[in-house]
């Protein structure tokens, strides 16, 4: 008599033999595996994704360039534009640091301060294996991980601008959560302001700064700086520029500010992970 979930029959010599499991049993097992993956810690499930990215790194890197080629058709080469953007970001960082140093001198704090956001920091160069820039999830996979000294929380740099932080690491791969990711939030400062504001990713390559009263002077084109974070970032660094600033639809007394990255995320092929005090 066949079993409920497996086919079973009496073979030669009177031995009971089991056949392949039924479709229903297979379905149940696979669903169980699916729920195990769903509820397992991300540090465990990341290993599978990192392994896939590592094994197919070469075709993924090639494939990443094809949409760029399609979109770049008809547009002039932007090699000079990239350099110009890099230098502009570098100048913006220096100006902000100079302003802060001048303020510290005025305050006569009496403390020794390091000049330069990257003074005393090490930079771990990394190549981008894969990026996701559309939808609410904006992330990059890079070819540096725990074995290279990269840990969760470290800031990631591209074109002298911050693009995000390390959210998970494998042995040789790391995942960068971009600041435009819908689950990303961090304190920032706009232009010459000393007031901390909360910037939250909005997906699709943009971020939002909300709850800023309209009494604050903010305009499109103003630079947005990532606030320093002890152990990860010693001085503010440029992270974006204000693309649009208008009164909020829900409350006209606050601004609805949209921030765009200062670098071309789609064109980023290599980044640097900031390791403070290596």
């Amino acid at each position: 008599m066949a079993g409920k979930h497996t086919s079973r029959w009496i073979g030669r010599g009177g031995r009971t033999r089991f056949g392949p499991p039924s479709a229903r049993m297979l379905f149940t097992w696979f669903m169980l595996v699916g729920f195990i993956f769903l509820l397992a810690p991300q540090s465990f499930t990341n290993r599978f994704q990192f392994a896939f990215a590592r094994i197919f790194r070469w075709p993924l890197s090639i494939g990443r360039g094809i949409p760029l080629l399609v979109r770049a058709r008809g547009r002039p080469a932007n090699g000079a534009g990239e350099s110009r953007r890099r230098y502009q970001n570098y100048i913006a960082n220096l100006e902000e640091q100079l302003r802060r140093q001048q303020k510290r001198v005025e305050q006569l704090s009496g403390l020794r301060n390091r000049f330069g956001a990257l003074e005393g920091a090490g930079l771990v160069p990394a190549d981008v294996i894969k990026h996701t820039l559309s939808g609410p999830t904006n992330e990059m996979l890079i070819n540096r991980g725990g074995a290279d000294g990269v840990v969760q929380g470290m800031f990631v740099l591209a074109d002298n601008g911050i693009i995000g932080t390390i959210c998970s690491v494998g042995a040789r791969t790391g995942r960068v959560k971009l600041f435009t990711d819908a689950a990303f939030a961090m304190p920032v400062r706009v232009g010459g302001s000393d007031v901390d504001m909360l910037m939250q990713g909005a997906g699709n390559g943009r971020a939002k700064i909300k709850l800023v009263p309209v009494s604050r002077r903010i305009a499109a084109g103003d630079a947005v700086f990532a606030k320093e974070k002890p152990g990860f970032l010693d001085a503010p660094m440029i992270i974006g520029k204000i693309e649009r600033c208008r009164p909020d639809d829900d409350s006209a007394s606050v601004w609805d500010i949209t921030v765009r990255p200062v670098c071309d995320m789609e064109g980023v092929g290599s980044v640097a992970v900031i390791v403070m005090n290596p």
Partner: protein
Amino acid sequence: MRWIRFAVLVVFAAVLQAAGLPDAIALTRLNVRPDLLLILLVFFAVYYDGNEAVICSFTIGFAADLTGPAMGPGIISFGLFGTALAYLNRVIAIGRIPQQAAAIFVTSFLVGLTVALLGFLTGQPAAANMYAVLLGTSIYTAGLGPFLFPPLAWWMHVQQAH
């Protein structure tokens, strides 16, 4: 069932999806693009039955998770709706192009909705215009999918006539 050809096909589609090649043919400002793995799911659910359809559905879901932000939602939703489609194919033949397009559209929408819901339960962010993107993706995939069935049938040595 030619499992080696199946594995090569799934890996190829997963790499194409992860490399962002569908972005090259994305439409509108919402960046609506076709889901290659979902086209594979419907193909194997329609042309295979029983254990093979179940294994194919869950394997393609695993491949979808490898290229996504989190693991688990793809395995569950692809497996669930792929298996359901395979059983439905026993009752309603999905042989002609309009039927295939309708099956792809409905499956794509349901899979996308389930993935978003399961992702939301595990802390993944949801897009503000999620339904518009989901609808656009389903329509685009349904429009493209039936035209990929003949080359898939050729690769898998499957007779297409129903």
